[in-house]
């Protein structure tokens, strides 16, 4: 029965994807497929971090975006001080991991036994603090940030240029998804993390420290958030304090919900789907001024909201998640 249910989710996902592709080609918006996959990869990367934390601690980590924000700020600082780019990236990722570690120690540990919504509010507080500190140090203007790879003409799919930076993003996502999938199913550490989330007492009884696992998971999630930020945001050219939370967090959450909050591959798939749908909404002419479904402001935000509510109302466990 479990297999049938999982397959049913997969089936629905496939149908949705095919329908999307058909609609996009029919309306002449097939570029949204490519652009959506690129932005969706970023959402997927953040979403994987969200699912990771949810699987292990049961909490929605609202600070996931700002773990990436910390990485971005560090990258900008190091790059502006003429540190070699590769070192700057490493430094940024280290900063993100430190942020995740500190959050786990200072915020999550004391609230281990508290209701999950209390933790949600606490992580939201952490996010706000991070944004505030960034605004304090950088003020709210956007600042230019350099890419890792500047070559843009290697590939182009459907007339959309796939710069090296973008290829890096997609490849990182795929590699990470595969590695994490193997990690959770084949390695002892991964199984221990899953076990700790399901039965903390039993896990402690067999001699595994649940607290150390929690620290590890949050640091790993922070690393993922940092990676997403460091690869995806320079592609847009500039960084603003709070950009990770305002532009990436909600679509990432929607992606995680769509994929099923307990499913890592679901997060990846969800990310790409959300990216494509949002890209379609942003560029399709019927949503622009004067179109049939004229949406004021950015249609992308509205469509992500519609998808989120739609998934929660129609199929709360998402595509690949276990029953909610």
């Amino acid at each position: 029965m479990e297999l049938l249910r999982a397959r049913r989710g997969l089936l629905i996902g496939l149908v949705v994807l095919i329908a999307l592709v058909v609609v996009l080609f029919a309306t002449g918006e097939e570029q949204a497929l490519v652009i959506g996959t690129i932005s969706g990869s970023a959402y997927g990367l953040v979403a994987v971090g969200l699912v990771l934390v949810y699987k292990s601690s049961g909490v929605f980590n609202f600070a996931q975006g700002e773990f990436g924000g910390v990485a971005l700020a560090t990258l900008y600082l190091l790059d502006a001080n003429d540190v070699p780019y590769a070192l700057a990236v490493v430094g940024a990722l280290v900063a993100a991991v430190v942020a995740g570690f500190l959050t786990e120690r200072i915020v999550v540990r004391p609230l281990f036994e508290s209701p999950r919504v209390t933790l949600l509010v606490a992580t939201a507080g952490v996010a706000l603090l991070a944004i505030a500190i960034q605004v304090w140090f950088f003020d709210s203007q956007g600042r230019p940030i350099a890419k890792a790879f500047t070559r843009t003409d290697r590939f182009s799919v459907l007339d959309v240029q796939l710069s090296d930076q973008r290829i890096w993003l997609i490849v990182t996502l795929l590699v990470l998804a595969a590695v994490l999938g193997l990690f959770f199913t084949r390695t002892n550490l991964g199984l221990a993390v899953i076990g700790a989330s399901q039965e903390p007492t039993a896990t402690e009884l067999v001699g595994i420290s649940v607290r150390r696992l929690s620290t590890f998971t949050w640091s790993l999630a922070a690393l993922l958030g940092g990676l997403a930020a460091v690869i995806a945001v320079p592609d847009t050219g500039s960084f603003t304090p709070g950009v990770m939370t305002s532009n990436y967090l909600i679509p990432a959450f929607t992606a995680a919900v769509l994929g099923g909050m307990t499913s890592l591959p679901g997060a990846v798939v969800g990310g790409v789907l959300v990216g494509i749908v949002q890209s379609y909404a942003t560029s399709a002419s019927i949503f622009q001024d004067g179109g049939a479904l004229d949406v004021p402001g950015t249609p992308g935000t509205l469509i992500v909201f519609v998808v989120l509510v739609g998934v929660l109302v129609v199929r709360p466990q998402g595509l690949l998640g276990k029953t909610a």
Partner: protein
Amino acid sequence: MGAPVTVTSPDAAGPVQEVAEEETPAVTRPGRFRPSPLGWVPRLVVWAVIAWVVLIVPLGHSAIDLQDFTRAVCYAIVALSLNVLLGYVGQISLGHAAFVGIGAFMSAYMVTTQGQSFWIGVLAAGAIGGAQALVLGGVSLRIRGLYFALVTLSYGLVAEENIFQIESFTGGGAGQQAPKPQWFESEWRYYYLCLGFLAIVLLLDWRLMRSKGGRALLALRENPRVASTFGINVRIATLFAFVVSGVIAGLAGALIAHNDLGVSATTWNFNLSLVFVIMTVVGGLRSRYGLVIGGAFFALMPYFLEKIPGLDNALAKIPAPFDLTPELAPLVVGPLLLLLNLIQFPGGIGQQLRPIARWLGGHRFDLHDRGLKEVQITDVRA
């Protein structure tokens, strides 16, 4: 069988009772403490000081300061609104800036574009706040806890990026104007008007919680499943609380709009929603005086920071390219207070002030009376 049943009349114990009353006149019911007339004096003095600080002291300040004070009153109303959802029902709204902001725009729109009076504007603001809550809550009836928080956050973003961009409603980038009402044009009169609204909201909140509906909400927060076995319709009750919260939020928005003499879309963002949640939690859930103080404190934080001498110099010594401006202070101090609150003092300011508040209400001063031991936001198997 026919023998009459003798009922001992209560007056039979009369003489004994009367003697007891004469001996200890202050205690009419054993176990209930009433302060003696001498005990009332310090209490009334403190009440008088509080009244003086709230009603008289602001008058000595400039008009700009009065605007800050009025904003503090409006934030207190917002805290009370969020408390209905967070404290009484246990559901969290991370998009409350949208409710307050749309209320603000509605009132401005009604007064400026439609030419209605301030009172119609306020009414419309409350109505649209409730309507939003009705629609949003109606759609998310089955969604609870963590997921509900997510939906409200997403809704806040939609308001920021879609609803506030409707030019005819919000005036686009320029925002809308919102003049003060006819007899309350000066700052201090408007301050008293807002105090009046705060008093009405406090009264309504108090009456609501003493009614059967209020008890249903509290039961709902404790354990929705058990509450439903008592015949409480979980969804309808949650929706009702949401609508009440929305109406009060819209009202607060209208008051803020006319206080600032205008509304602009950039104020009502995600950061503000979080500040609202933080000030409600730090103020103390379910504690009316705590909420008022929490809301006022966060609104007045920039004001206090400006008034503390030497703070600018101290802050300037911190090596950062930009100064910690007073506007930024709530965003930095807020989360720190929140974390302190969640980890160490679950009941917030209200819990800490509870001994004093109980004393003022005519009870004994008990330093260890902290009310409930832990403030649960909600326990959800999401």
